[in-house]
């Protein structure tokens, strides 16, 4: 039966190959991000194209369009379309605030770029409060052409922080797993990818014919822990993101799964079933020493650390169905009996702490639907944030503003993001295949 249609399959394959090649050259962003629902009352801001009078060699990317995209994508800002700009000032001296008030702009960002050398540039920008007619901040930064996108994200971060009071998370990355099924052989190929938070610069850091799972960032954003089935059984690896160097961390009998870094970067919490049953362990990276944290005939898995490292929340079905439990740690030993945290819904799993430690996002199953919910652990209230039925793998942006997660749309695995208050929704799509298990990198000081 397969043989008969081989010709067709091959033609299809070549067509796909051609279209693949074409898209590869046309499209920079492999992961495209769209806002599907924004916030009412997003703040109006006008970003005027920066002056390039003193630039001989054009930058590889336009700073202002990257900044506009960042601000719009956050759902918190409504940047004015470039064609609607009523004036194009480049510094405070030439801004007429009255004109901007008339078009209801709350904020204004202006600036100029200077070329200092072959690849060396400087950007100088000023952010204004239009109604007060005052400068909020004015900064200048040197940068090299190759860092244009990072520079733009850094400016977006500053604007975001000045205007919302919360750190920006534009200069971050997202790790995720894609699975592609080859048309001819029906074989699956798995990739562990990283991309900038706006979907650009997608890079594959691992390629395997066997499943890859559970990427987790080290707190310094330099390493990823993950599970690979390349040996036809699950093993935990740690890989340097930028050099590609990697090391197998565990290869115990049974499960080696759900690795997550401690906030101080010294330990991995993980699930091992070498005792015959899935239990939580701490793995000290420097000494490779293991400490067993749970001992229960039920499944204990999916640990997540509180940001101060004092607590672990994990999934356990010790009550019959998977629910979240919390355990205190003292000097990396259990300091309390696990206490059940979730009571609403028949299935709550894969918890993840928010960066401020006040919320836990999770996969919440109720009446056959699996959605992303967030538990306020101060007030003990659960809010369901999504409206789909196959959501999984929530991960917080490092500033706590958004939760990225995996879901299913038109029978494909896609990523989506939702703000913690449930008001802003984004969709992130890859060109082809299924994408899953997003992990948002921490904030790093590196530019």
């Amino acid at each position: 039966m397969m043989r008969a249609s081989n010709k067709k399959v091959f033609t299809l394959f070549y067509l796909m190959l051609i279209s693949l090649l074409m898209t590869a050259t046309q499209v920079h962003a492999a992961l495209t991000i769209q806002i599907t629902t924004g916030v009412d009352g997003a703040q109006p801001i006008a970003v005027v194209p920066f002056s390039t009078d003193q630039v001989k060699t054009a930058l590889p990317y336009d700073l202002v369009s990257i900044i506009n995209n960042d601000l719009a994508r956050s759902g918190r800002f409504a940047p004015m379309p470039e064609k609607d700009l009523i004036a194009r000032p480049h510094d405070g001296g030439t801004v007429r605030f009255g004109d901007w008030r008339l078009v209801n702009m709350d904020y204004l960002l202006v600036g100029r770029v200077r070329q200092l050398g072959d690849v060396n540039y400087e950007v100088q920008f000023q952010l204004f409060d239009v109604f007060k007619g005052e400068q909020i901040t004015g900064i200048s930064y040197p940068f090299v052409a190759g860092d244009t996108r990072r520079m733009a994200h850094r400016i977006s971060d500053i604007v975001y922080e000045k205007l919302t009071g919360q750190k920006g998370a534009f200069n971050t990355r997202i790790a995720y797993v894609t699975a592609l099924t080859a048309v001819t052989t029906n074989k699956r190929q798995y990739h562990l990818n990283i991309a900038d938070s706006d979907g650009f610069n997608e890079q594959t850091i691992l390629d395997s014919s066997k499943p890859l799972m559970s990427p987790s960032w080290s707190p310094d954003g330099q390493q990823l822990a993950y599970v690979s089935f390349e040996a036809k059984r699950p093993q935990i690896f740690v890989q340097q993101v930028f050099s590609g160097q990697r090391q197998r961390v565990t290869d115990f009998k049974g499960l080696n799964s759900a690795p997550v870094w401690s906030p101080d970067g010294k330990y991995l919490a993980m699930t091992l079933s070498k005792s015959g049953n899935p239990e939580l362990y701490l793995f000290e990276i420097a000494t490779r020493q293991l400490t067993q944290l749970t001992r229960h005939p039920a499944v204990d898995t999916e640990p997540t650390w509180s940001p101060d490292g004092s607590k672990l929340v994990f999934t356990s079905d010790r009550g019959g169905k998977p629910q979240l439990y919390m355990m205190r740690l003292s000097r990396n030993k259990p300091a309390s009996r696990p206490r059940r945290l979730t009571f609403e819904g028949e299935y709550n799993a894969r918890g993840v702490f928010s960066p401020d430690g006040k919320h836990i996002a999770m996969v919440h199953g109720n009446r056959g639907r699996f959605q992303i919910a967030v538990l306020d652990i101060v007030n003990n209230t659960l809010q369901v944030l999504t409206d789909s039925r196959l959501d999984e793998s929530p991960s917080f942006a490092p500033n706590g503003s958004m939760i990225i997660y995996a879901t299913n749309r038109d029978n494909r695995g896609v990523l989506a993001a939702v703000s913690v208050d449930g008001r802003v929704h984004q969709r992130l799509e890859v060109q082809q295949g299924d994408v899953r298990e997003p992990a948002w990198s921490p904030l790093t000081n590196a530019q």
Partner: protein
Amino acid sequence: MNYKLLVAAVLLPTVALTGCETLGVQDGADVVVEDRGTQADGSQSAGGEDTGATATGAQAGAAFKGHPLDNPQSILSSRVIYFEFDSASIRAEDRAAIQAHAEYLGKNAGAAVVLEGHTDERGSREYNIALGERRAKAVRQLLLFQGAVASQIQTVSYGEETPAAIGHDEDAWQQNRRVEITYRTR
């Protein structure tokens, strides 16, 4: 060379037979065919499936003469055990098949199996890995009770990572909540 041909001669009709069967039976039969492919060390794949398919018609009525694990009429040909959502309980209808495998393993000390546990896509991936392991262990436990010994059985869980059926409805999910029994040696 001659030996290879002989193996191919024995295996080809059975591949074809099960191949035909898959058309009628939906679930795990596909998987069984795949298993055969790997066990035959690829010797039959070069021969092509087309010739295999024609051979079937000629032999369809004959009594089965090959290895008992290759007999599509035998209960041993049933090598996928299915489960309910979030459950590792073995259903009554699957007990006979597991018992047959246990007896086969008990009588053939050199035989060994891998039990691969799988889940459907719902819920969280890491929990599903644990659930897949629990399913594989439930089948292992029953095999051990009924005559197999521990050294004959390996278990591994793939959780929801390698579905047998692509789809996002109960039909696909039911096919994916499974333990596959694969003979490493027979």
